[in-house]
């Protein structure tokens, strides 16, 4: 009897469709994937270890670099966790601005996903359209925060600065235009026969498996589970916004695609509401332990000057305890677990990143399927390796 031997293929870490430095070890029986083993860690920078040596404020720039398509969303998760630890809350205006820019960032992140996912499967045109719209979002984010990829816009207790003049107009202008653009993308893909053949019934993850394997975000909702942190555990005033949570049906690549497209429409609604109902008021919480004094005060008042110097040089001391807080990032549930020993730097930070655990579902999706579908499945779970490896 002939001996059965499988062919082993190394996909990545330098493969254009693995979205970064993911290495997949595929064992193949002809064109069928028998076993897939993801190897991660090529982009491990030790963010958690580094955080332990920094003051609470100094960790914010590190979070930008987790999921680098979603800098502002990562900032939000971290500052909310530390605010929870301190027992403070950002003022309403800051919360609304946070929601508006976070949702804009979600749109930008989803646009990168759509662009690269379509490119992987062979539809190149979508990429150019998506990056055009992403550019307008990044311009707004740059206007607001000064940074495109790494905004570091939020501070513990509020925002680094108020929105600039003309922000509302540029956002409104973008929102007016954007829903039409989503329809444009849809004309390219949704009823496209090639697209449907490549995505329908591919990379199926059932609802039960999705929960068991710990999937979150569109990967979970594509499987038909209506679970979104923004609805289940509302933060930053999300309970005051009116939006729907789209879900899929069978949990294939096509469902996850439809879920993300609909999510973009919902994000547009949220930004619209945030801009329409933007309250007036301060943008920083009133907590002298954490918040820098106003610049005017620093120049005139010695106490304020000392306080500014102390906060900048030493940071602040957080109460002893531990908190977990999570937000809905574009990829799924982004959680921060912060342990404080009462000193001015976190004792331990564990970042529960959505891509890390969504990626661990990948073998479940592709084993026993064709090798050509691997690329479609990787694109559909929308991983960012900066976040997987931390």
């Amino acid at each position, binding site marked *: 009897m002939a001996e059965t031997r499988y062919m082993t293929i190394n996909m990545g870490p330098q493969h254009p469709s693995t979205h970064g430095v993911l290495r997949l070890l595929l064992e193949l029986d002809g064109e069928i994937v028998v076993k897939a083993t993801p190897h*991660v*860690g090529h982009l*491990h920078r*030790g963010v*958690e*270890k*580094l955080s*332990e*040596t920094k003051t609470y404020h100094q960790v914010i720039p590190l979070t930008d670099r987790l999921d680098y398509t979603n800098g502002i969303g990562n900032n939000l998760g971290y500052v909310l966790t530390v605010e*929870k*630890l301190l*027992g403070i809350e950002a003022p309403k205006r800051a919360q609304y601005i946070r929601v508006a820019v976070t949702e804009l960032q979600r749109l930008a992140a989803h646009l990168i996903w759509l662009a690269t996912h379509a490119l992987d499967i062979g539809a190149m045109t979508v990429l150019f359209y998506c990056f055009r719209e992403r550019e307008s979002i990044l311009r707004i984010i740059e206007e607001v925060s000064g940074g495109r990829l790494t905004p570091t816009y939020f501070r513990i207790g509020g925002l680094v600065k108020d929105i600039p003049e003309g922000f509302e107009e540029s956002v409104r202008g973008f929102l007016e235009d954007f829903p039409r653009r989503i329809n444009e993308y849809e004309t390219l893909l949704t009823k496209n026969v090639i697209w449907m053949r490549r995505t329908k019934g591919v990379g199926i993850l059932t609802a039960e*498996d999705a*929960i*068991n*394997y*710990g999937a979150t975000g569109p990967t979970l909702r594509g499987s038909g*589970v209506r*679970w979104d942190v923004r609805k*289940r*555990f509302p933060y930053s005033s999300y309970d005051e916004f009116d939006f729907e949570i789209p879900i899929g049906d069978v949990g294939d690549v096509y469902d996850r695609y439809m879920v993300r497209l609909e999510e973009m429409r919902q994000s547009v609604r949220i930004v619209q509401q945030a801009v329409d109902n933007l309250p007036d008021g301060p943008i920083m919480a009133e907590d002298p332990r954490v918040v820098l004094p106003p610049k005017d005060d620093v120049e005139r008042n010695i106490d304020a000057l000392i306080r500014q110097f102390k906060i900048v040089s030493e940071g602040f001391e957080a109460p002893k*305890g*531990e*908190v*977990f807080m*999570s937000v809905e990032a574009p990829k799924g*549930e982004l*959680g921060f*677990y912060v*342990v404080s020993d009462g000193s001015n730097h976190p*004792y*331990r930070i*564990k970042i*529960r990143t959505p891509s*890390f*655990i969504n990626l*661990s579902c990948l073998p479940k999706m592709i084993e026993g399927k064709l090798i050509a579908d691997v690329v479609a499945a990787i694109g559909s779970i929308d991983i960012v390796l900066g976040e997987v*490896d*931390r």
Partner: protein
Amino acid sequence: METKGINKVKGQFGASILKVETFRDETTLVVEKNRAKEVLEFLKKDPDLSYDYLTDVCGVDYQPRKPRFELVYHLCSTQYDRRLRVKVPLEEGDSVPSVESIWKAANWYEREAYDMLGIRFENHPDLRRIMMWDDFEGHPLRKDFPVKGKDFDKPFIPEL
């Protein structure tokens, strides 16, 4: 988690629940190592608790305190929208039963805890390093591991 749920777990496991803490509206159960898996399984299976979703598993190094480590599970119930934290104190060299058979999600989390802190898991299907390379020595998130690394001034040349 409301008191009813806590009482139910306490009634079931008695002295194995070492402590119940609440901080910032978050409930933490501290559970003895030997019965940790049973408690977690109960938390998932019991219809009143139904913590069907494993959000996170991680370890914390409290050196020089004894016991040195704490293994932290974050659970979530998709049915009741509740969260719970379960902590298991561990001594250096201790191993805990893997919960991979309860939640598949635990697979990579436990590999990470093993890689970063050297916590061993019994009956884990594939306990390898996940972030660091296979012949890396040490566990980076331990407090006695230097931040700049141990071999920062030596070139890394793998043997071929």
